[in-house]
């Protein structure tokens, strides 16, 4: 008896015992779930099988980044959907980050009007559910923009209509290699030039406008090559044929609405995170930086933001994850993402709800974990190095 009460009184062994008990119940619960699924599937006369992934899907998808045809398999349809999820998450994250950082800084501005506008933007946007944002943007695009036959034309090459946005598509012709070559040379030059300028500054304190020089080099070198090689890029201009525009690059109203909605919604949260990050930096840092004669933009870019980044990145990661997962609401407006293809039409055509849902859940889990892993790696790069 004393043996057991001794074990229980010992903090270390008590912790271990509690963990073993919790683990046991967790394992028991999971195995009960699995057994119950099996029992119920047996009672329904169903089995668990993933063979359906390899039979032809039979349905068409309106946006595909890899070749897709209704004769392709459900697996391929799922990959097309996953890429569509990735595409909208990618655009959404860029928009949300740029807009969010700008708004976060504007909100701290001394300009009363600018700071109030940012304040109202944040309060209005983040207090309206994301689904309404998506439906609102989709509604605006399809109800206010005209029919393709009356599309708004920008210089007869770019068109806006309720079927989406059409822009010219660059087509490579022979001789394009020279442009690529010049671009690579320009980039290599820029890297070396930046290193050289850094060294020079460290030694002498002389600063060059590195960014603008490199920017011009990267822009103009390929442009020179373009003219030297006899303009080997032609534009495929979208043209109205029958019901819709053909040719050019097309952004569907669904993709546009989803990108705007996700970007604008998440930007409100990011703005608050950025504001919190900046406010977390002691005012003395600003004053110290100003006292050595740095311009306000340099104070922000060289002193405040690098320190604020440590506070910003962990919650920013959550926002990126949220945005990616929120993109599954795409189904409300008919954007063919992973949930709409594999977790939607494939599920319905094959009746494999358990299998498709498991796959979709695992994919979202691994996508989220990879974003998380990347952000953790970035966080460890910028975090305060302990001395």
């Amino acid at each position, binding site marked *: 008896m004393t043996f057991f009460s001794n074990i229980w009184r010992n903090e270390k062994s008590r912790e271990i015992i509690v963990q073993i008990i919790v683990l046991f119940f967790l394992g028991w619960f999971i195995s009960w779930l699995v057994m119950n699924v099996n029992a119920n599937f047996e009672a329904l006369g169903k089995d668990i099988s993933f063979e359906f992934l390899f039979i032809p899907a039979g349905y068409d998808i309106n946006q595909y980044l890899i070749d897709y045809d*209704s004769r392709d398999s459900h697996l391929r349809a799922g990959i097309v959907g996953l890429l569509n999820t990735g595409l909208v998450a990618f655009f959404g994250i860029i928009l949300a980050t740029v807009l969010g950082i700008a708004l976060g800084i504007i909100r701290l501005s001394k300009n009363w009007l600018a700071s109030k506008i940012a304040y109202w933007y944040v309060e209005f946007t983040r207090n309206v559910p994301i689904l309404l944002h998506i439906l609102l943007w989709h509604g605006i695009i399809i109800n206010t923009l005209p029919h393709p036959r009356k599309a708004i034309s920008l210089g007869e090459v770019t068109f806006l209509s309720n079927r989406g946005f059409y822009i010219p598509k660059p087509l490579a012709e022979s001789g394009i290699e020279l442009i690529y070559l010049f671009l690579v040379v320009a980039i290599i030059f820029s890297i070396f030039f930046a290193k050289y300028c850094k060294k020079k500054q460290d030694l002498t304190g002389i600063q060059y406008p590195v960014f603008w020089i490199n920017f011009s080099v990267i822009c103009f070198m390929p442009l020179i090559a373009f003219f030297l090689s006899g303009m080997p890029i032609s534009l495929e201009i979208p043209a109205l044929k029958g019901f819709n525009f*053909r040719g050019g690059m097309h952004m569907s109203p669904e993709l546009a609405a989803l990108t705007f909605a996700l970007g604008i919604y998440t930007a409100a949260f990011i703005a608050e995170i950025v504001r919190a990050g900046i406010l977390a930096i002691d005012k003395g840092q600003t004053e110290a930086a100003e006292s050595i004669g740095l311009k306000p933009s340099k104070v922000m870019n060289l002193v405040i933001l690098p320190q604020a980044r440590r506070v910003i990145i962990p919650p920013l990661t959550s926002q990126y994850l949220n945005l990616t997962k929120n993109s599954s609401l795409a189904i409300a407006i008919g954007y063919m993402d992973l949930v709409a293809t594999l977790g939607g039409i494939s599920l319905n055509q094959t009746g494999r709800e358990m299998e498709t849902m498991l796959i979709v859940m695992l994919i979202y889990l691994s996508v989220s974990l990879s974003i998380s892993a990347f952000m953790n790696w970035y966080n460890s790069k910028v975090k305060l190095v302990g001395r």
Partner: protein
Amino acid sequence: MKTKMLLAGVTAGVMFAGSVLASTLDDVRARGKLNCIINTGLAGFAAPDDKGNWTGFDVDFCRAVAAATLGDADKVNYTTATGKTRFTKLAAGEGEILSRNTTWTFSRDVDLSQTFIGVNYYDGQGFMVPKSLGVKSAKGLDGASVCIQTGTTTELNLAEYFKGNNIKYNPVPIETNAEAQELYKAGRCDVYTTDASGLYATMMSFDNPSDHMVLPEIVSKEPLGPVVRHGDDQWADIVSWVLRAMMAAEEKGITSKNVKELAAKDNKDKEINRLLGKDPLQGLSKLGLSADWAVNVISQVGNYQESFEKHLFPLTIKRGMNALYRDGGLHYIPPIK
């Protein structure tokens, strides 16, 4: 999002549901109500009326089964399902019947472990366009944006038909009929495609139905009918014979008006006697139904013709293939003996 939640819920339901098996009829009787899965809203088939009561051709069938099994057509709980959630909901036991214009296909019947108990409406997939588009045939739809309801046979038919005719199109998948209507009206799509019955129902709900037309091509066979789960033959028999009883009543001229009168007297046509419980119908006790089951169905819901005319004539749908065999249609009822 709603659908996703439902799916997650249903998946969880499959995870947690107890695996007790009792006869479906016993379950319904013990509960005192029939659970019936219907459309989220399709005029004529299942839509709420101005008092908020579900009404329509598919709803009538739920009512008929409740009348046969419980003696009261009003004892029905309705659960709505989209094209996508319906089979999951049926499989998870959220209803005893799926009465939601569901197309009978091989894989749905065999692979999804459900039983199609008959056809209550012969349909086919068609195309609706605004007249202003100037299209006269589905062959002229090259390059069009097409709104489709997802989770149906529709998208497969569409892909096959357009591929077969080498027509390019831009599919716009939509979850429910109501949302699809909005997109079609807003001009997001040139064409709306679903079963022809659904097209007429949708068209009649527009402000100016005459501005739209259904193209002559019917690109698929869509035999629609009620569905039950595999494994309870007694229940499948009950549901299928309720459907046949409604059709047999039309054939024999039994209506909700005269059924009580015919049930009370000895008719020359002995089939009427057997159907209405005057003469014994061998095997009825195996179904667990009382002798007046068909009288309840016909007096409370009506025969097939009455239900059809009440709900589908207002949509300008004609009997066509859905007439009885003797009138040139496809409904041929096995004898009640």
